[in-house]
């Protein structure tokens, strides 16, 4: 049975819809109200507060931490400066992705890693010969994401650090009242935002502070349904939805390399050995089979299909996660991939999806066909290939100009 996060006393009070789901063994709010979209709009226009405690969290210490992590991750973590964060994935020997997450460097020999799946066992398999300790702190540390344009102003109200200078993908510790928290300028919404890490016993105090100061900034608690829309807009992939952990799949077809899931940019190939290096080098040479792309699904054609049935066009208001076939053309004879998640993007006014397709079809702006079901009948409409990242506001990475 799922357990309760330290924020449960508050989230359970606020979640009047009773819409919950299970996330990594925790009860997690899907949406606080019966319709999630006000929570989505909070992420985009003010700020949303999301309980991210269910993420797995590891503290890596010891004089060899950096070289150990460089060995495990596809990215050369030894290059990561203190106070910086990086996003990357890690692979098995065959260069297939096990999981993805963030790595924060808190000191010369101290790192903090988050992941979607439990990775203690996986990390521990590679510690031999390194002066390193992997500590699973998942259940001792609670996490809160404060995401949206007013997030910085809210945190500035009660943190003693200069958030105006904290850069995108940087991290710092901060004093709040009489305890310490870690703040990283990261998140899963593709917007200005922060993730806060705090010891369980202080979790509720932090929640209350944020809710209190957030009032003047239209902050509202937000659930996973709203998050899902933002992460598709931001083109951020999700394990078990857009790809699978290679250690958990039964068949090879379900495994992916970083190149195949749009994470090629996180791979530093030319360096000391790391997990999957040889396989990834070979794949880089030979070329990958698959690619994750963004799809912009033609609205006019959808409208036309509904119109034929005398219906106004409908799109679900929540993000979807079904596997939807992608074809080369409307004959539906040749399937070349499948969409894995998608949503109507209220901010872009577009119907968008993330899809895994054969690499040779991944040119930007090329036209494919995606299956749509209207009145129980299957049709296809045009889907234009794009980068997975649909939405990328300037404020996500910018800092206020000092006067």
């Amino acid at each position: 049975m799922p357990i309760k996060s330290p924020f449960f006393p508050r989230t359970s009070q606020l979640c009047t819809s009773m819409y919950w789901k299970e996330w990594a063994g925790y009860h997690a709010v899907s949406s606080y109200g019966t319709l999630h979209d006000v929570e989505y709009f909070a992420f985009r226009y003010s700020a949303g507060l999301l309980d991210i405690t269910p993420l797995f969290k590891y503290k890596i210490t010891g004089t060899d931490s950096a070289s150990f992590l460089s060995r495990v991750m596809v990215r050369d973590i030894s290059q990561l400066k203190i106070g910086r964060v990086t996003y990357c994935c890690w692979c098995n020997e065959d260069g297939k992705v096990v999981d993805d997450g963030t790595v924060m460097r808190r000191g010369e020999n101290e790192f903090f890693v988050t992941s979607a799946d439990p990775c203690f066992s996986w990390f521990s398999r590679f510690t031999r010969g390194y002066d390193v300790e992997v500590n699973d702190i998942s259940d001792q540390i609670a996490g809160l994401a404060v995401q949206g344009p007013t997030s910085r102003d809210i945190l500035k109200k009660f943190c003693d650090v200069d958030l105006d200078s904290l850069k995108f993908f940087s991290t710092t510790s901060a004093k709040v009242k009489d305890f310490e928290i870690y703040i990283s300028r990261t998140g899963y919404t593709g917007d200005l935002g922060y993730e806060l890490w705090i010891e369980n016993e202080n979790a509720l105090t932090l929640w209350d502070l944020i809710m209190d100061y957030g009032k003047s900034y239209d902050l509202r608690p937000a659930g996973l349904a709203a998050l899902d829309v933002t992460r598709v807009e931001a083109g951020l992939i999700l394990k078990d939805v857009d790809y699978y952990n290679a250690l958990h799949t039964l068949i090879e077809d379900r495994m992916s390399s970083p190149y195949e899931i749009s994470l090629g940019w996180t791979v530093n190939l030319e360096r000391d050995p790391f997990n999957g290096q040889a396989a990834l080098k070979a794949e880089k040479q030979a070329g990958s089979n698959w690619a994750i792309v963004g799809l912009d699904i033609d609205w006019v054609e959808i409208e036309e299909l509904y119109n034929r049935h005398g219906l106004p066009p409908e799109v679900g208001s929540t993000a979807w996660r079904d596997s939807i076939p992608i074809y080369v053309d409307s004959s539906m004879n040749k399937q070349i991939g499948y969409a894995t998640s998608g949503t109507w993007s209220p901010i872009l006014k577009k119907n968008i999806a993330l899809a895994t397709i054969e690499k040779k079809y991944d040119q930007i702006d090329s036209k494919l066909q995606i299956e749509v079901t209207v009145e129980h009948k299957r049709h296809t409409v045009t889907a234009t290939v794009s980068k997975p990242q649909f939405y990328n506001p300037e404020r996500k990475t910018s800092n206020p100009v000092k006067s």
Partner: protein
Amino acid sequence: MSKRYDSIIIGGGHNGLICAAYLAKAGRKVLVLEKRHVLGGAAVSEELYPGFTFSVASYVVSLFRPHIIRELNLAKHGYEIIPMDCSFLPLPNGDSLARWADPQRSRREIARFSQKDAETYPEFSRVMTHMGKLAKAVIDHPAPDITSMNPRELANIFRLGRTFKGLGPELLHLNTKLVTMSALDFLDLWFESDVLKAPMAVSGIIGTFQGVRSPGTAYVLLHHYMGQLDGSFRSWGFSKGGTGGVSLACASSARSYGAEIRTEAAVQQVLIKNGEARGVVLENGDEILANSIVSNLDPNRTYLKMVGESELDDEVVKEIKRYKLRGSSGKVNLALDRVPEFSCRPGDGDHIRGDVAIAPSIDYLEKAFDQAKYGEFSTRPYINAVIPSLTDPSVAPPGKHILSCFVQYAPYHIKEGAENWPKYREAFGDAVVDTMAEYIPGLKDMILYRQVLTPWDIEQTMGLTEGNIFQGELSLEQLLFQRPLAGYAKYKTSINKLWMCGSGTHPGGGIMGAGGELCAKTMLNARAI
């Protein structure tokens, strides 16, 4: 003047800007001339008090045509709408009704007043969606002229006819009713509770000098329902940064296609030679020539001020003077130092994040109209209020709020003559604040700044004749192929090469963009430019 433009657009309202964007996108050399220092016309945002950005006139968006967003790439240029979750009706007896996007929640709320109404409510929405489909077919095309024998016109009528036929006899019948009935009679077909009908009926009187019992107001009701289609999940929403955000997105798109836009460039007159528009004269005396002129101004101003009676046939002059403007609305914008809480449902919850209607009963609305009939503003008016700062924090400083009140009735023609409105401005503002304060205790102590717009002010600042918010009433005789004038619809005027693109053309008022779009497309199709 060396530069010669393919087209000059007089007025930088959202329709003028959209028209410019379409023409420029088609490769035409376009110049927009706006009288004020800001763009947007009635869809305008202005920081009137430090830190507070007001949607000075129009305040919510619903009817904006989605295909224009796509065709002009407006999402990229900053067109952002935050939907409203609730319609809230506070009642003087301490009760209240909140209608939510969540249908079950609405059902329970309405059932406190009438269980029958609560269960009929979704049926009503269903029918209105059907009706809206028809309306959509009407608003997304130039209105076909049923008096014409031109084959293309007949084809258009046929297309419309098909849509009508698709409705089936029952709905078709209803549609006929909708066009001729009063908003109230129409709602009476479904509902019994005054508490539900009053806030619904007001959609039928917005921008008109009519009461909820006046015939024809049912059509205006439908007009306001149209935004429901179009794949947006909520019908009404706030534009980020105020409704001026919509206009600025249109301007940015127009510029990206090469259109030139000038502010503080008031046009004095259209230059006419041999019955043909050749250019414009600015108030500063400059003359600018162009192959065609488009007016974003209302029909009255376009014909009588920009052209002038001397250039017009008597018949046209007579017709245009008959064109009904009769502004009846005002606006009171307040900057508040805290969240205004309603005594009947305290707190800053979601119930006040949508619109708030002061329309406690049908009689209340009729009484408000009665005063207007005799040339007075309503001392207890219908008010549609919103607090946009609760969903869009960019419009007010942290913890501070904007209370925007759209008010009816404030007849342009007050007893002593419209030019006497300034004398009554503050009294009118007081009536609005007093009315709101009956529901929001302590309101008067929260006010940091107050802006009162009477119809006279709306005319003076925005150039909307008689302060009519839609550039002309949405009454049957001045709609469709008769908007603005029978014989001179379809964006043409009685002057060669002079076109119109504002809300005074089909399909009418509101932040829709349709006038601007359809005018540009009509000009391009006719190879008139």
